[in-house]
């Protein structure tokens, strides 16, 4: 109800007050613009949500580098308490039909407490292949590829997620348009997660996650300053970012026997979240941002709501 009121007001605000210089430094989605050549950037990120009585956290450090003016790469190690190192024991249930036993997936108990463990090393590369810069606007397009390795956690939902839950790879395209104070960016991509294998107490399990397509739309607007007079001026930017994903159902095997997928968290799904963000840039380099996410269409099983994200980024100029 609150969203129904605030969203139209926000969009009207950003569409009718375009004046000077826009913002595309989105907290959640990447713009098509790239890191300057030979510049190293660092970003600290945290993501928090309350899962019943348990606080789920993820912490990450992103080291980014401009290999060329058009090619940016980063490495991002991540730590979280999202999952155990093995699938939950209550993930698979069974029933007897006559002499046979039918295994099926059941809804797991949420709110379990897990230790903080390394949740993977994420690599990302983005190449800006189209640049149409004008005096007060630009349109840019980029292609990206990403992969996550060294994951140690047993992600127990079908939705694949490379920044914290799954190993795998992905890629896609980004188109960003900026006009004065207003910026908009669309990202479309795919995710292919690696299967998860475990051997626990003599039982072998294999979980094949659903493949996903992603569709994200970001809006950014510079609210302060109206006119720059100094690098010491803080910038304050507002963002609305829509993050959507459609994914297939997972497939699960126990000792090579297929497990019927019944639980919703392992089924196919699609959802759209909205992230409201505010960002402050100090001394033209220190970037601090806060976002909070709510569901718009359906919900992600990967996290509870609201999802709170904090970030701090800086370029380390030589």
């Amino acid at each position: 109800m609150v969203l129904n009121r605030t969203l139209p007001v926000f969009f009207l605000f950003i569409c009718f007050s375009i004046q000077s210089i826009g913002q595309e430094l989105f907290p959640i989605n990447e713009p098509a613009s790239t890191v300057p050549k030979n510049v190293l950037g660092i970003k600290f990120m945290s993501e928090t949500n309350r899962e019943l009585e348990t606080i789920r956290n993820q912490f990450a450090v992103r080291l980014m580098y401009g290999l060329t003016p058009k090619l940016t790469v980063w490495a991002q190690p991540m730590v979280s308490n999202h999952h155990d190192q093995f699938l939950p024991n209550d993930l698979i249930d069974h029933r007897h039909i006559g002499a046979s036993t039918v295994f099926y997936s059941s809804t797991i108990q949420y709110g379990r407490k897990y230790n903080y463990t390394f949740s993977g090393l994420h690599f990302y590369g983005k190449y800006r292949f189209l640049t149409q810069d004008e005096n007060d606007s630009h349109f840019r397009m980029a292609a990206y590829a990403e992969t996550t390795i060294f994951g140690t956690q047993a992600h127990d939902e079908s939705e694949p997620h490379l920044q914290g839950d799954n190993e795998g790879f992905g890629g896609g395209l980004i188109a960003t348009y900026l006009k004065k104070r207003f910026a908009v960016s669309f990202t479309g991509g795919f995710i292919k997660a690696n299967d998860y294998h475990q051997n626990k107490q003599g039982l072998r399990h294999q979980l094949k996650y659903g493949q996903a397509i992603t569709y994200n739309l970001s809006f950014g607007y510079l609210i302060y300053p109206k006119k720059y007079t100094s690098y010491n001026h803080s910038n304050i930017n507002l963002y609305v970012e829509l993050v959507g994903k459609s994914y297939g159902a997972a497939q699960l095997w126990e000792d090579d026997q297929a497990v019927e997928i019944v639980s919703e968290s392992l089924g196919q799904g699609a959802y759209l979240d909205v992230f409201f963000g505010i960002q402050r840039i100090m001394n033209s380099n220190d970037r601090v941002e806060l976002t909070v996410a709510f569901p718009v269409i359906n919900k992600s099983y990967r996290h509870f709501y609201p999802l709170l994200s904090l970030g701090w980024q800086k370029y380390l100029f030589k």
Partner: protein
Amino acid sequence: MFFSLSLLRLFRSWNKYIFMRRLLFSLLLLGMFTSPSQAQQVEQVTIGVNGLHCSACSFTVEKSLMKVDFVSVVMMDLNDRIARVILNDAEETDFHKLAKAVTDAGYSVRDVVVTLGGQSKEDQSCLTIDNNNFCLIDLKSDSNEFRLIDKDFMPKKEFKKMQDIPAACSSCGTDKNRYIAQWF
């Protein structure tokens, strides 16, 4: 100072032949020591930058320009999206390096305007400053600024419209360090 000393020595000389020789020598010295103060030099380079959208981006361009070896001072104007660059007295000045610094930072060059200092320009279509040859077109007698014409110094679309201009400049110095420029 040097010229005054030379004249003093001239008046003390009683040998007409020596007097004439010293007069000629002094005039030569006069020419040598007065011509640099009249010579034109690059006072400032103004680079229009397209794609700039925030103070952090402007800061990035400034940092990139400051890495260029012959740049002394960079003053960014984010409201007008321009970089004002003061050059140091290095012998080699390559304006393409300035353009590359902007693109390395992730932005595009809208224009590069060179402002001349020193004595006002003479009516000439060819100018040599700091080992660079400028072939100048569209002469304007009241201007001391010209913009450089090259694919590195302006949007590609605009440069394509000016393709026939370089042919008229083949007689202006050598190809090396030759810039086509238009009075601004």
